[in-house]
């Protein structure tokens, strides 16, 4: 039924790159999908670089928490955020000391409504000692073709992103938790 008024995909409670409405319908990885059972700990690809990956929202959502999955070593500071399609920052954690290993680090944020459409999740780190759990997609071109971008010298995450061609083979495990959930 093409005119069904509710024919949309309701969002999952946690936004991340593995969702079909993010990289998973676009990327090639393990088989046809970017499986979340394959991440590994790896140092951030370059100090102060920010990585951006797209998510398509079918409906407005309210973000309550931003999060990322630390790897085996924590160091320095991390910033996690959300941008609109034009690169305007909608919210971010700000520079946050990386704490905890092999676990999710989460930051409560002011509940923020994000309108439907294309958004970008973003993560940046100020050093190359700390690690994040991430997936490699084969090569940087695969990340490019999946819609990822990067920005050098972008720590803390800037108010306006200047999207540059993705040159990293690195999909961070990071994202947002949506209302009414407050526990990830």
């Amino acid at each position: 039924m093409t005119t069904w008024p509710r024919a949309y995909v309701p969002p999952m409670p946690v936004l991340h790159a593995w969702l079909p409405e993010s990289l998973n319908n676009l990327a090639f990885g393990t088989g046809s999908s970017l499986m979340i059972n394959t991440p590994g700990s790896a140092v951030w690809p370059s100090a102060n670089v920010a990585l951006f990956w797209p998510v398509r929202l079918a409906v407005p959502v309210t973000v309550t928490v931003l999060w990322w999955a630390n790897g085996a070593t924590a160091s320095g500071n991390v910033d996690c955020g959300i941008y609109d399609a034009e690169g305007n920052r909608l919210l971010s954690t700000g520079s946050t000391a990386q704490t905890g290993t092999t676990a999710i680090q989460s930051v409560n944020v002011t509940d923020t409504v994000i309108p439907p459409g294309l958004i970008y999740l973003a993560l940046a780190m100020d050093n190359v000692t700390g690690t994040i759990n991430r997936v490699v997609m084969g090569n940087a071109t695969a990340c490019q073709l999946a819609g990822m971008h990067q920005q050098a010298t972008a720590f803390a995450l800037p108010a306006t992103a200047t999207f540059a061609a993705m040159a990293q083979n690195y999909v961070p495990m990071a994202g947002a938790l949506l209302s009414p959930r407050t526990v990830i």
Partner: protein
Amino acid sequence: MDWPSYPPIVGQGIIISTMNQHGFGQMLDGANTLSGTWNTSNRAVYMPVRISEPVLARKLFWFNGATVSGNADCGIYDAAGTKIVSAGSTAQSGTNALQEVDIADTLLDAGLFYMGLALDNTTGTFFRLSVGTAYRAQAMGTVMQATAFPLPAAATFAAYTDTVTAYVCGFSGRVVI
């Protein structure tokens, strides 16, 4: 802006399961789904599923593993953790097979729901998928609740601490699964 007539990505099915396109099916490798024991007696696990069109839920099901024991409960919760319908405490029976429970026909609108599953012992088994670390299960949206057998009317979501992400369970819009 193309909202609210944004086209669905997920094809709507009549079987809504944690392990098909309504749940983790497009994000996890289902080939690793194996029989395994329940982690903690009376723990409830809540796993998100989403539907893009209304469904009349007529049956609940879960996938028993190689050993059955005690009692299980399976239910559907809304996004806020309020129970909509559940099987109630049900003797686990039948190995390596789906166990089905008829429920009062329940209309669910499009949206996000949680499949709740609980067992009152750690001998019984279910088919489930392990992703190795709790944080990967957390990222998938899985949450849990201790001392939650049978499934409570209102879930209190707590951070997930187990490495098993997806227990195979769900509901059906058909009487015959």
